[in-house]
Structures are given as C-alpha cells and as structure tokens.
C-alpha cells in the first residue's frame, strides 16, 4: 500500500485519510491497522485533506472538544492522542449525546460531558487543555470558543474552530464571514495560523487554527 504519514498517527493511504487503529464504530473501514477517516463526515478530516500544515493534536494531548455530536471526529482524535491523552467532549443535544455516550465509554480516553458550551462555568471542574476544538453551529460560535479558551486553554495553547458561515450570516459571502471570525480571534489575543476553505467536503465551511499569544 502507498502509505504516507502526514502527522504522527495520521496517514494518507492510497489517497485516503486514515489513523492507526483497529476498531470501528460508524461502519468505517479498517485494514491492516489503518482506520479510514471519511473527510465528508468530519470537518477535521476535511481540513487534513485540504492540506492543514500543523496539527496541534498529538499523542498525549489534552483536548476540549465543543460540539462533539455523535462522536465521529471525537473517535479519530481519541486514536491520535492515544492512552496518554484525554478528550473532554461537550455536547448539548440530548439525542446526539445518547449516541456519544456508549462510544466514549468504549474509547476510555474520552470524558463525555452533557453540557452547554455557551456556559463553561457549568463544567468548570475539568482541567487545562493543550487544544480547544470548537464545532458548534451557533451564531456566537467564535465568542463561545474564546470564552472556553480563557477558562480552560493552557498558555500558548491552540484553538481549532470549524466555522459554519451559514449559521453566522446566511446573507454574507462565506469568505467574508470567515475573515471576520479570524479578526475576532486576533483581537482576543490569538495568532491566526491557518484559514482553510473546506470545499468540496463541506460547503460554506471554514476551518481556522489559532494559537494563544499569552
């Protein structure tokens, strides 16, 4: 197989994205130790396929994942951070959460939290993180991410945010919305490292990687 490692634990195998793992939760294909990652179902997967330059999520990282939904992307991050890492997966929707819960219980390095990302004080018992990953469809998503960073991000930590431009402003150009959100991050004390357009995997979605200056 033509396998090329892009980041530790993340490879492109014959043109397809994969992590090193042997389990399968959503019917994804597992072959010879590679667990294939459908970029159409995961914004982080899409960002990796679109040429993400730096992946702050590494073996042993602690990640706060806001908007974990059914746990698809979460399960791949779980494979990357491994047993030395930990993911705090926050999901508000009860329906999604009920599907996330059994997967989290199997993965063992995922801490499921049924909570509202807009109110970080309700889960203030968690620890400081290397990375905050935010994927919530909320018009205030960037503000919510920043608030969570100021509560839980370690100094010089990373923020990864998937921007659904349609839930911020349906009438504006998606690129304009993404730039406006990047500016908000700069004002809040972040260096914006990358802004990626996720087409054709996700329409009108952008992916921003930023790093806290403090």
């Amino acid at each position, binding site marked *: 197989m033509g396998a090329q490692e892009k980041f530790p634990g993340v490879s492109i195998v014959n043109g397809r994205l994969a992590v090193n793992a042997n389990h399968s939760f959503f019917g994804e294909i597992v072959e010879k130790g590679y667990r294939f990652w459908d970029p159409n179902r995961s914004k982080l997967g899409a960002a990796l396929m679109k040429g993400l330059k730096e992946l702050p999520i590494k073996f042993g990282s602690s990640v706060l994942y806001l908007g974990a939904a059914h746990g698809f992307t979460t399960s791949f991050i779980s494979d990357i951070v491994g047993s030395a890492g930990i993911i705090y997966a926050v999901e508000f929707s009860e329906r999604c959460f009920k599907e996330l*819960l059994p997967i989290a*219980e199997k993965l063992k390095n995922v801490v499921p939290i*049924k909570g509202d990302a807009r109110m970080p004080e309700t889960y*203030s018992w968690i620890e400081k993180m290397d990375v905050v990953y935010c994927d919530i469809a909320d018009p205030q998503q960037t503000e919510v991410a920043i608030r969570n960073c100021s509560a839980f991000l370690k100094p010089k930590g990373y923020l990864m945010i998937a921007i659904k431009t349609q839930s911020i402003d349906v009438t504006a150009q998606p690129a304009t919305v993404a730039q406006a959100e990047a500016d908000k991050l700069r004002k809040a004390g972040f260096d914006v490292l990358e802004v990626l357009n996720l087409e054709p995997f996700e329409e009108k979605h952008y992916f921003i990687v930023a790093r806290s200056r403090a």
Partner: protein
Amino acid sequence: MAIYLAANPLGVFAVSEGKIVWKLLFGKDSLQAAKKLNSWKTLPEVIETIKRFSALTDQPNPASEYLSTHLREIAPEAGFNPGELGLFLSATGAELSKLSITSTERRDKIIVQAVSALNDLDKILNLKTERLREWFGLHYPEFSMRDHEKFVTEIMAKGSREKFDNYHGSHGISFKAEDISTVQLYATALRTDYELRKKLEAYLAVMVKEEMPNTTALLGTLLAARLLAQAGALEKLAKMSSSTIQLLGAEKALFRFMKARGREKVKAPKFGILFTHPDVSGAPRDKQGKIARLLSSKLTIAARADFYSKENKGEALLKEYKEKVAEALRE
C-alpha cells in the same frame, strides 16, 4: 485571607493563596464520585467547612482555577496513578452526564414524537388511499365517494362492484375473485391505519391539554401539538419571540427573503403553520398577516405560562385575542 471552595471528580478542595488547605476526597468509585460532584455543595462535610472558614463557593473562582491547572499533580494524592486517572475521569463524566439526562426528561418530547408519527401517517394515508382509488377505479370508475375513510370502508366491506347499492352496470374492467380479494386485503390494512390515526389523535389531545393548556386554548389540540413539534420542545417554544412563533414552519420562505435582501421582488412570509388556524386562513387576504401576528403575540404568553408558571390563563388570553381580531376585521 479568603478561602475558596471548588470540586472536581476527585473531591472537594478548599484553596487559599494557591495552596490546598482542606479536602474531601470522593474515592475511586465513579458513580459515587459523580453523585457527590453533582451536589457537592450540599454534602454535610462541605456545609460545615463553608461555615467554619466562611468559604466562598461561587464558580468559577481561584479554587476551581487552581484545580483545573493542577489536576494531574493532585491525582496521585487522591490515590490515582496516571494510567488510572483518564479511565476514572471518563467514567465519572459518563455517570455525571447520565444524572443530568434523567433529570431533564419531559413529557413534551413524547408529544413531539407522536405528532411526527401523526404527520407521517397522514402522508401514508393519502398515498395509499390514492393508490386504492386508482386501483379500484379500474373496476368501478363510476363509484364516487369523497370521504377517504368511508371509501376505504366500502371497498373493504364489498369488494365487487355488483355488491354496491345503486349499481347499474359499469365501463370498468371486470375483476376476478382473486383481484377482488387482493384489493380488499389492501383496503383492510389501510382501514387499520385510519383507526390508528384516530387513536393517535385522541391520545395527543389528552397529552397536549395537560402539558400545554394555554397554548391549546388558543389553537386547539392538533395545531398546538404541531406548533410544539415544529419548535422541537416546550422550553424552546417558551423562549421564542412572538415573531419567531409567527413564522414557525416558514423558515424556507424567510431565508429566501433574507438572502434576496429586497433586491428581488421576494416578499417576507407572514405566517408558517399558523396559517392552518381557521382565523388566519379564513380571513381576507390583506388581514391574514395581521391576524397571524395577533395570534402569535398571545401564543408567546401562553407558551411561557405553559412552561414556567403552569398558570391557567388560556380563557383570558383567548378572550383578549378574539377582541383584537374582531377589531382588526372591522378596520
């Protein structure tokens, strides 16, 4: 110096000037830890400590900040080696979340599912009845019966065209015995769907009146249930502005209008599912929007009363609403 209290899955800790001055460990059992963390401020030892130190417990505070920064250092003192900690946190998070799920379940979710089932059933009934009409129409095209349910019942009972009253010959094709028995079989199955629909509607009527009496007073049971289903939950409906309620079910038209931003001749929608209310659909065209607005403004109050106060003011709201409608129609 002020003493702050905060809790995490390991226990409750009192922190002063960056040092832990008191602690209560929860132990290694995840379920117990989750239960204690869920209501840590009411634990007797904690209440005593709050009194003794006049400790501050609002979250977040310097103590919660200290705990989240130093969790990994505190863990060995609580008896966890690094390998165990992740597993314990994961299990405790799961238990804690399960506690919050069971405590927030409400009856309105059942209504939402039942309404959706009813909506599905309506679609199925139309589809199947149409098929039966075409199918049986081959045999007896002259037979007319506007009411769907009666039509189905007739075919189920009679089957062959010769058995119908007032049968005076037909242009349709003749059916063999097995053609007739198959059509009858289909009609019989369809008939049970109509029975199911009636039962569902009766069940919903009782549920909706109990769960949202004020909204029901204004809309009747079926429309109230549909409005709830459209909103997703009673809490959501209660938090909506009246303009949002007015346009529930018209999201597509609303976004089309917003995208056009007045550049094209796209008109703003005036109502969504509220259009099915007889006051709105029965009003003259130029008054429909106004009446939908009056209705939704009263619905906002009704939904809030249903969710928060549980106070019964349906009749008063209905009276006020009727007066305003009469006034609007006079103008």
